[in-house]
């Protein structure tokens, strides 16, 4: 037997792993600098001052409390919605709903918050409707209720989508069996659906819990007082309002410790969640036509629609005001938009480079045709994967605070701010980009590795002929999503933004802060359009889909069918 691969001078593992080591090195450098910054402040910390007034514990308590409640409520709403959608593949508006659900990933947090205010605020739609009946819900928004509404607004659709994917992954024979066995609606949920959902529950709810735990913009805008502060907002206030860096470091390290514990509890969270498109496979479910099923499904879908759609509609409605042209003529708007564009492109590109390196490394460590099965492969892959998602463990503010401490002596904030924002935003988008790239790279390697080796397609040729065409869709999606996420981010920029350096989300937040809600609505719409447009343009250019009108789709399908038909006949 002759060896399959040719002997070469460089060790095999280095050939496969160097891009990953490059990415990991970059991440390690950023983390190293940030931690050096944080730890340099430790001598300055006056622990007695911090522990004396219970502030820290109150903040920790509230952070955990609101994250738990948000996750529980979002899950309770998402499960019936996922069931309803899974057994009604032909429901009108189903696609729209699914698009909206993935939009909640792309709609900037601050825009969602604005929408929630427009519905639930003192003069929001809800109170306006109630006033027709001489009723008033009062001013319930600011505080815990507002935080919960906004968190559920963002996360319930996300969870519903993940749950729907889980239910849709069940074989169609299951539904035929349940129909033939005469299982009732309740039995199907109890015996089939719930056991399946329970498997993805730790991972998906863990992710949502972490998102709520580290949520910033929502709490900043809707928190409404020191009693409803989360750690993330407390860090922001320590730096921005109190100029108390040691206090910020204590809060940061607390946040880091808590997130690490959470991560250990929900160990392999997000590993088995892929952020792909749902496979549109029409499964016929026979339990859909039962009256009890129709009633519960209708209730679930109406509740979800009332939660998700009005805030978005209200934002659009408010944006078309007489002030539209005045705001669009504002030079500040355009300079903020341009800043956002620069930051999102830079951060997106950085994310993509880091993600590609890591994805190549992880695929080489998993695939048996490469280094899979070697003694160190599995732990190394796990560590690499974790490093890519480190930002979930180490919230943006902690990172930004550390980096700020290190660099603040070297240059002015005006010079530093863009670099800090780009770096941290890039790391924030990295976990999402990885969830897209890793599965795609792995599948393509699995399909092509052996074939390429037998045909001696290597190096640049392999990239040009095999890897690029097979993965460009995923690359486009990853870059588009990263850029869109960075466009809408209001976290690090809130910390480092100055008069001369604003982005659209910060500009919008400033308008909300000074109660110029019409202006804020217009900026919100502008921001959404910019984010969406950027996402679409990038995704389409890289994925090689050009801007074809939509009806081209059905045409293509017909043609494909005709081509296949003689085959099947």
């Amino acid at each position, binding site marked *: 037997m002759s060896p399959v691969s040719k002997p070469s001078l460089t060790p095999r593992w280095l050939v496969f792993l160097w891009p990953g080591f490059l990415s990991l090195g970059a991440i390690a450098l950023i983390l190293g600098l940030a931690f050096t910054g944080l730890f340099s402040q430790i001598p300055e910390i006056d622990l007695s001052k911090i522990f004396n007034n219970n502030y820290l514990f109150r903040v920790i308590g509230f952070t955990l409390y609101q994250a738990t409640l948000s996750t529980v409520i979002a899950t309770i709403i998402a499960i019936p919605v996922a069931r309803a959608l899974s057994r009604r593949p032909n429901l009108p508006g189903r696609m729209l709903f699914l698009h909206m659900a993935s939009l909640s990933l792309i709609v900037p947090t601050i825009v969602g918050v604005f929408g929630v205010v427009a519905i639930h605020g003192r003069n929001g739609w809800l109170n306006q409707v109630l006033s027709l009946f001489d009723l008033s819900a009062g001013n319930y928004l600011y505080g815990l209720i507002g935080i919960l509404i906004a968190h559920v607004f963002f996360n319930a659709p996300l969870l519903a989508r993940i749950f729907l994917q889980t239910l849709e992954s069940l074989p169609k*024979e299951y539904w*035929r069996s349940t129909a*033939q*066995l*005469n299982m009732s609606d*309740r039995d199907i949920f109890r*015996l089939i659906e719930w056991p399946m959902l329970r498997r993805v529950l730790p991972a998906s709810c863990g992710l949502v819990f972490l998102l709520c735990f580290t949520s910033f913009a929502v709490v900043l805008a809707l928190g409404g007082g020191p009693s409803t502060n989360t750690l993330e907002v407390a860090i922001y206030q320590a730096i921005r309002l109190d100029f108390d860096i040691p206090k910020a470091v204590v809060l940061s390290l607390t946040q880091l410790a808590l997130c690490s514990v959470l991560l250990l509890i929900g160990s392999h969270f997000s590993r088995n969640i892929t952020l792909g498109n749902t496979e549109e496979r029409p499964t*016929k479910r026979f339990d859909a036509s039962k009256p009890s099923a129709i009633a519960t499904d209708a209730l679930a879908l109406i509740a979800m629609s009332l939660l998700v759609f009005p805030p978005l509609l209200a934002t659009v409605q408010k944006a078309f005001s007489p002030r539209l042209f005045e705001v669009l003529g504002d030079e500040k708007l355009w300079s903020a938009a341009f800043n956002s564009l620069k930051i999102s492109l830079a951060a997106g590109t950085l994310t993509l480079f880091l993600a590609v390196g890591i994805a190549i490394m992880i695929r080489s460590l998993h695939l048996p045709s490469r280094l899979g099965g070697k003694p160190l492969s599995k732990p190394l892959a796990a560590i690499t994967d974790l490093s890519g998602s480190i930002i979930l463990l180490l919230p943006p503010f902690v990172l930004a605070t550390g980096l700020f401490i290190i660099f603040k002596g070297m240059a002015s904030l005006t010079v530093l701010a863009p670099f800090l924002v780009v770096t941290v935003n890039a790391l924030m988008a990295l976990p999402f980009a990885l969830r897209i790239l890793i599965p795609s790279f792995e599948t393509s390697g699995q399909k092509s590795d052996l074939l390429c080796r037998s045909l001696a397609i290597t190096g640049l040729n392999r990239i040009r002929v095999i890897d690029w065409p097979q993965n460009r869709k995923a690359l486009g999606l990853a870059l588009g999503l990263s850029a869109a996420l960075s466009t809408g981010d209001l976290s690090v920029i809130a910390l480092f933004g100055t008069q001369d350096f604003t982005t659209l989300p910060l500009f919008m937040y400033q308008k909300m802060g000074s109660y110029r809600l019409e202006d804020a609505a217009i900026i919100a719409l502008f921001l959404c359009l910019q984010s969406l447009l950027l996402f679409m343009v990038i995704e389409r250019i890289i994925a090689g889909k050009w801007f074809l009108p939509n009806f081209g789709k059905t045409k293509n399908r017909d043609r494909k069918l005709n081509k296949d038909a003689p085959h099947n*006949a």
Partner: protein
Amino acid sequence: MLNMANLTPGLQISHLSFKHTKLGEVLEFDLQINPGELVAILGPSGVGKSTLLNLIAGFDAPLSGVITFNSQDLSSLAPAERPITSLFQEHNLFAHLTAEENIGLGINPGLRLSNSDHVAVDSALNDVGLSGFNKRLPSELSGGQRQRVALARCLVRRRPVLLLDEPFSALDQTLRKEMLKLVKRLHCEHKLLTLMVTHLSDDADEIADRVIHLS
């Protein structure tokens, strides 16, 4: 009520037509299966063998035509109300439930089983040669064993018509022959009317009383 003069025993399928959503073709079926008969339906892939079984079981709705069993019209009945039990090629068992639970679902769809129900499950397992496999999960069973458990569930449901859709195509030859023997034995012991779809003429010849070629 039924007119006794027209009573036709067995499974009668007349002018049953179905529009294939993917291919856009209209398929039409006419069949008469006598009580106690074991019929194999043979044909290349794509002629609508599985479609025929789906129509009989009520998983697909026909454009027109009639399906009767012992002169009872089945067309308006839900899958669970039909005198029919099905065995698919795969995914017959719910992957997270044990063999025992999977069979128990055939007795009570809420899995609320009495002591006598548990006895029935045991005897069905015994019938298919898997005594003592009660607590195994599908993932801990071989492909052949999974189909045996699925057959056991078909038995506890006590329906007169058994539909098999390429049930053993995924198994190797020796195992397949064994399973076919088992089906034949159960068919006779339980006095079933059995319809088996397959693309393997050997299998059809092996056990069928009659082979119908679809083309």
